[in-house]
């Protein structure tokens, strides 16, 4: 039975239900309980934004605070995954990948192939990403394209509470390493979420709005920006189809191409930087596979190729918005 809960509650519920179902699921990360070794309350934080709050109280030492040593604990999560556990490690901000990337891209991602198909590494790394909290250059990036580049990793970017729960449960049950991106501005978003556990398969994009004139391919927080723009454009008689990728690895190229074949126009909306990005990747895909369907050049709407700024006015300028997207749509429609 579905009821409305937040994205944050959906993540927490997915973790709790999977921990209850499978005792090999453990959660580790910085302050995922909070209070370890201190004199006050245990389970004090549940992570800096309280996402895992309450899990320690339910599952005790299967919820493990870690030292602030991402190399060690992300690596330990990877090692434990090869040895019978299903660890869910929290990398507080994806920007911190700089101090543990080896454990993900040289270790977890490679084991299966490099060991001749005999390794299974069912690890999930949950991580916060995205601009919008005035957190500046080292706590605000959208680095999913870097992980998407690496064969052996699966990359998940849910946009709604429903997707967050179903994709996280799928991530935990999946036997390959998964990095699960949670946009920090989506945590308070409410949506219908079934009480029961459920999964959403990877590699199935979600057409969140059907339309006939322009395909907007997007992901994560930007799905909502796309809908805002599409609503505005519909009153001008421009019909937008919105494709939420849901997972960038695997990527549902069929749905992208099918949609562009129907609309003949593509705008890719991505909060990340433009170079070597999901936006450029999707654009290249469509150029190669559906060029004959295109009635206009592809447009990419992305953040600029700069670090995320701190000052509020600059950060607001940095994040792609509905106005920019509308402009791009009008351009491909020849109505600018």
């Amino acid at each position, binding site marked *: *039975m*579905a*009821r409305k809960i937040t994205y944050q509650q959906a993540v927490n519920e997915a973790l709790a239900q999977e921990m209850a179902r499978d005792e090999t699921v453990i959660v580790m990360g910085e302050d995922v309980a909070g209070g370890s070794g201190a004199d006050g309350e245990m389970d004090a934080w549940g992570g800096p934004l309280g996402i895992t709050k309450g899990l320690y109280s339910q599952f005790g030492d299967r919820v493990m605070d870690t030292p602030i040593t991402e190399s060690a604990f992300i690596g330990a999560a990877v090692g434990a995954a090869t040895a019978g556990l299903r660890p869910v490690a929290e990398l507080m901000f994806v920007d911190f990948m700089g101090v543990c990337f080896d454990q993900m891209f040289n270790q977890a991602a490679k084991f299966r192939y490099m060991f001749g198909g005999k390794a299974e590494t069912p690890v999930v790394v949950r991580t916060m990403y995205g601009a919008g909290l005035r957190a500046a250059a080292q706590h605000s990036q959208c680095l999913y394209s870097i992980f998407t580049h690496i064969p052996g990793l699966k990359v998940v970017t849910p946009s709604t509470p*429903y997707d967050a729960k*179903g994709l996280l449960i799928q991530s935990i049950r999946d036997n390959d390493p998964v990095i699960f991106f949670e946009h920090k501005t989506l945590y308070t978003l409410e949506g*219908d979420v*079934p009480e*029961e*556990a*459920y*999964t*959403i*398969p990877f590699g*199935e994009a*979600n*057409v969140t709005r*059907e339309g006939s004139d322009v395909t907007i391919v997007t992901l994560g927080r930007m799905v909502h920006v796309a809908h805002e723009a599409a609503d505005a454009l519909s009153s001008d008689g421009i019909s937008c189809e919105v494709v939420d990728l849901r997972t960038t690895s695997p990527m549902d190229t*069929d749905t992208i191409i099918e949609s562009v074949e129907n609309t003949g126009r593509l705008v890719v909306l991505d909060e990340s930087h433009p170079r070597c990005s999901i936006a450029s990747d999707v654009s290249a895909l469509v150029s190669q596979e559906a060029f004959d369907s295109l009635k206009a050049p592809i447009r990419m709407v992305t953040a600029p190729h700069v670090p995320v700024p701190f000052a509020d006015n600059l950060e607001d300028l940095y994040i792609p918005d509905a106005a920019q997207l509308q402009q791009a749509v009008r351009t491909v429609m020849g109505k600018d």
Partner: protein
Amino acid sequence: MSESIRTICMPKWGLSMKEGTVAAWLMDEGDEISPGDEVMDVETEKISSAVEASESGILRRQVAAEGETLSVGALLGVLADGDAQDGDIDAFIAEFQANYVPPAEDEEDESAATETVDVGGRNIRYLLRGEGGVPVILVHGFGGDLNNWLFNHEALAAKRAVYALNLPGHGASAKDVGAGDVAELAAVLDGFMAALGIDQAHLVGHSLGGAISLQLALEQPAKAASLTVIGSAGLGSEIDGGFLAGFIAAERRKDLKPHVEKLFSDPGLVTRQLINDLLAFKRIDGVRAALETINAAFAPGGSQAVILRDRIGDIAVPVMAIWGSGDRIVPASHAEGLPDNVRVEVMAGQGHMVQMEAASEVNRLIDELIG
């Protein structure tokens, strides 16, 4: 004057419908309209269907324009007698529009409207509409849920209480289906009636739900005031086993869509949202196992295990079998050669989901049968 002016409004099809888009007018201004006539096609995010007139008159105004998206209850058109004055009609429309309040955003969602009852340790979710009289119970088929009755439930509830339940393993009901066979599911229906204090009901079952209703009517004759089975199981061995297996196995939209399209005579009715809703249901833990159990018990090897055809003549209360002639799941030939006590209505060109695609006719037939 205004009593001679009548409205056609945006219907509410199912609990989650908030608005609909006018796809096409099927009648022109000036056309004479009778109850049941299809006036326009409306698309919602879940389903497309025709809006049928419930009253007669001349279509005097097409208030809603094609392509316009309007809330439930919004004015679509106006019927009036030929002698009604244009000025009165304009005034009527102005007054309606001034007073129209669209339903609040979250006025009623499924969790708020449906109720749960414990039936032998299983939570069974159901929706009750209407009140009084001998109640009707609507029993959906394999892989369906109470929303399969979205075009029937309100209409039938105009005159009496109408219950639609989610069978075990379906909708938001418990996922435990036990043996999953027709007998066990009929026992759940029996228990459902007992739990709600319903001594006797008009049983209306679709597909597997038809077999379940028939089984209950045979085992507990006093419980059935009448029996209507639609595209029903239990009347012959043939069934599209490929549909059942494919429906269970499909995990993705592309895989599921061709199977669901078989249910309808018009595959255009299978919207993306309809498929998404089915996928969301199928992805819930326990559903696949429940469907597999039911399938294995109900149609092992792709043919029906329980055939009650020889006993349907024993039923003393009114019995009706409705079929779409083009049913691709359970063949309409099962409607042939039934005993004389069974009223048989085969609708030309219709498919398995005839209660959705020819809702008003089905509703009329049921109303007629149960009086």
